[in-house]
């Protein structure tokens, strides 16, 4: 005859504790892996804009980043930016330069795309549309969420690369051509993969799509 042994009270508590521990370990593994958790993806249907013509929507892994462009400040630069967006040239563009909690940079059309990423040349690519004259503003403050055209060390070398600031960078005022400001989705930008202590990111995050609101 097999004698059934009843579990003691403390054994039952230990058993329940182990089950809870296993469940929480599994769930936290999957939840923590999802970097986009708890991030609002900015549903365009729920948002209204005063100047829809100047609203650009950048779709990233964690959702939409909504950018208002400022043609009044930098008309030529914004015109170029819109052209590149409308030609879908930013689609698949890598955030190859990411300084943690400071800025993210993308837009190398030639050497920084998901289909062709060349680390030996990244940052030097051209759009084929030529360089632009810098449109500097001593009044535009590079606060958190500012969007600006990147350039080489010299002025008047703006082409297609752009950056977005994740904090106020006062020293950039009057140094870079302003393009606009992030209206919604700054927290999405903060989730973009960084290169830890390195300035360039290996296996970077990409722009899924980048469209003007009216064509979205």
């Amino acid at each position, binding site marked *: 005859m097999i004698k059934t042994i009843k579990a003691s009270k403390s054994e039952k508590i230990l058993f329940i504790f182990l089950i809870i521990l296993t469940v929480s370990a599994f769930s936290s593994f999957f939840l923590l892996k999802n970097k986009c958790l708890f991030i609002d993806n900015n549903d365009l249907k729920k948002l209204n804009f005063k100047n829809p013509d100047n609203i650009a929507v950048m779709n990233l892994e964690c959702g939409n980043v909504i950018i208002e462009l400022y043609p009044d400040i930098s008309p030529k630069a914004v015109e170029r930016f819109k052209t590149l967006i409308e030609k879908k040239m930013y689609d698949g563009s890598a955030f190859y330069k990411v300084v943690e909690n400071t*800025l993210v940079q993308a837009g190398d059309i030639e050497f920084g795309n998901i289909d062709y990423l060349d*680390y030996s040349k990244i940052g030097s690519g051209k759009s084929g549309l030529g360089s632009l004259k810098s449109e500097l503003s001593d009044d535009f403050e590079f606060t958190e969420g500012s969007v600006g055209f990147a350039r080489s060390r010299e002025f008047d070398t703006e082409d297609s690369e752009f950056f977005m600031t994740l904090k106020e960078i006062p020293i950039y005022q*009057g*140094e870079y051509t302003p393009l606009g400001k992030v209206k919604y989705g700054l927290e999405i930008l903060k989730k973009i993969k960084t290169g830890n202590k390195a300035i*360039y990111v*290996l296996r970077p995050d990409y722009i899924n799509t980048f469209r003007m609101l009216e064509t979205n």
Partner: protein
Amino acid sequence: MKIIILFILIFQFSQVNADEIYNLIKIPNLEIYKLKNENNIRYLNAKGDFKIGVDDNIACNKTNQENLNTKFPTIERNIKRYNSKFLKKINLKYVVFCEGLFISNINTGGIPDNKNRTLILDINFNEKYFERMIHHEIFHMIQNSYEEDFNDQKFSLFNNSDFEYAECSTCSNRLNLDLYENTNGFLTEYSKSIPSEDMAEIFSFLMVNKNLIEEKIKNDPILNKKVNFIKLNISKIDENIL
């Protein structure tokens, strides 16, 4: 081969200084000291020692905050004399403060860098010449931006035919910065080193003690020509500087 290049790049990337000030002017370990100024100049401070240039030949140490706070009003007063338009023309936007500035192991008061629109100043430079040194270094930025107007050969012709400058500013022992009693074409011993230092000395004296120089040139025809040369060419850039 591509894998080797990738490894080299990864290593190099990890060495890159991601600081936003470094991104602009290629000097590490700086912080903002004073950003908003009437003439749009920006003052930066070395919060740590730095080495820059070819083979790290330029080296300077971090500042003592108290020391900088004491000397800043003097620096600001002198740099305020240049308006924003003029500073833009000579490519000067950033003034970097540090202590113990050396270039190729030679102690110097300032290093102008037109390419990065930066003037590095050693705030511990000899107090006696400190204010003049600021204008002296600014002149080098002026000359770098207007090489044709401040042509060395043209300027050298003002000297007596038997006079010869040294090969370079540091390869002679003509280093004294005190004003000569009898000028005889040169304001200081350092003026005799090379033409650009001669011009910079004249400009700096004109900025800090114009009346004295006006007196000196009355009895010194060579110096008179040199001073007029500097005045004329500076006025082409901005009539209100001198």
